[in-house]
């Protein structure tokens, strides 16, 4: 019976070619193969975000008057609403954490070497979109903390000369953070960013299939043939094990450590004490904090923001910059990955003290 259905579908959809490709696709097995699992982990958490996001959007009201109250309703009245919200909140953190892990593992393994430069660049876009999703989502409960975090976050581009002010106005829908900011952020969070993420994932995954799995330099330099596993079914079953374990951890954390909700934001109130962005922005937050108000007559913030922007540009062009990966230049670039890890962790911990 199974062969009957399969051939019926295949005659109409031509899926056997995809199935055939997946069987032929090979995944190398070596001591660094563990990092290959980070990509599909991101997909798992993204899928969870989409599903829980759909469900939350059933009850969430993206208006100044309704936002906080609707989230409160989800947490108190809607059956198991608090769990769905908790999963959405935790899965966001997991997704962003794995995006960073994935990026760093690719950087250190130099998987972006020719011909995989576009895979890396589409990945940098995905990093930006994922962080933007986290930032826009954070405002939606519209409580004092998220309002203040948004005020600070949307103020940062302003320090860039000439264009900064327009970026801030575009993000806020005006000079200040208002109800218009909320609806704008909602549009970004549920519509614009997910569509962009889907599109760039499609490009990213297509390129990976087209160009095959890359090998780290240390493995490639060994002349012996590397053991390979078929993607389907061998590697996919291994990925399922990873998904199940990650899912269990996510559900446990979501059920026992759900997020709370502060009362609705007061646009006129002073900024609350202990104001902090989400953990994934803490290292940037702390970096901005330590910059002095002025460096040689230039606004300190301006320099900080421009430096961050420059770092992002460098990150984007990393495969082009790292054109001699096996030589000293390549080793220095790998070293910078570790420098970044130490910097980010130090800054994050410092901001919490």
């Amino acid at each position: 019976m199974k062969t009957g259905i399969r051939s019926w579908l295949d005659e109409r959809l031509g899926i056997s070619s995809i199935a055939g490709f997946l069987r032929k696709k090979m995944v190398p097995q070596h001591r660094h193969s563990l990092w290959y699992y980070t990509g599909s982990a991101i997909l798992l958490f993204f899928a969870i975000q989409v599903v829980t996001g759909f469900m939350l959007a059933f009850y969430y009201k993206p208006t100044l008057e309704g936002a906080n109250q609707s989230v409160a309703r989800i947490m108190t009245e809607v059956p198991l609403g608090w769990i769905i919200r908790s999963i959405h909140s935790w899965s966001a953190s997991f997704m962003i954490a794995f995006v960073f892990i994935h990026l760093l593992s690719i950087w250190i393994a130099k998987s972006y070497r020719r011909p995989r430069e576009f895979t890396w660049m589409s990945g940098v876009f995905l990093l930006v979109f994922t962080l933007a999703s986290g930032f826009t989502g954070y405002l939606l409960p519209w409580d004092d903390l998220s309002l203040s975090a948004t005020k600070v976050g949307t103020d940062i581009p302003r320090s860039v000369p000439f264009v900064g002010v327009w970026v801030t106005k575009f993000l806020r829908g005006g000079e200040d953070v208002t109800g218009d900011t909320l609806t704008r952020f909602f549009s970004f969070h549920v519509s614009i960013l997910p569509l962009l993420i889907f599109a760039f994932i499609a490009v990213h995954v297509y390129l990976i299939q087209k160009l095959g799995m890359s090998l780290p330099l240390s493995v490639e330099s060994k002349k012996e043939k590397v053991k390979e596993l078929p993607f389907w079914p061998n590697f996919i079953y291994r990925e399922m094990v990873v998904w199940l374990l990650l899912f269990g951890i996510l559900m446990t954390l979501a059920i026992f450590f759900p997020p709370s909700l502060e009362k609705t934001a007061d646009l006129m109130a002073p900024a609350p004490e202990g104001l902090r962005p989400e953990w994934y922005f803490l290292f940037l937050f702390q970096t901005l904090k330590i910059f002095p108000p002025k460096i040689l007559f230039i606004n300190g913030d301006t320099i900080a923001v421009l430096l961050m922007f420059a770092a992002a540009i460098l990150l984007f062009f990393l495969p082009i910059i790292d054109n001699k990966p096996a030589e000293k230049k390549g080793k220095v670039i790998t070293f910078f990955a570790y420098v970044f890890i130490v910097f980010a962790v130090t800054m994050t911990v410092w901001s919490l003290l």
Partner: protein
Amino acid sequence: MIRGKKPAPVFLLLLVFFLAFFSGYDLAQQETPEEQSQAAQAEKEQEKIVSSPKNIKESTGLYVFVGWIWLAVFVLVFFLRLKIKEVDRLNRLGYFSNKKK
């Protein structure tokens, strides 16, 4: 980037950078006092909505649910490992090379 043994220009550059960096510092900066009276703190806590199961039935149900999830995860991982062993064995025997079902 760092070629040969000529670190001196680099150190000079870093020194200039640090001097410029700290030139803008107001060393008389004071730490913002973080005072929050007990009453204000308590009030803030009350205004929060904390999600939690409502009654003993619901919280027991949650423990059961989490327990079920982990039970299912471990059972599925156990079966998947068996499946992986089987599929690896087939691969070693060359079952998957040039195979189109």
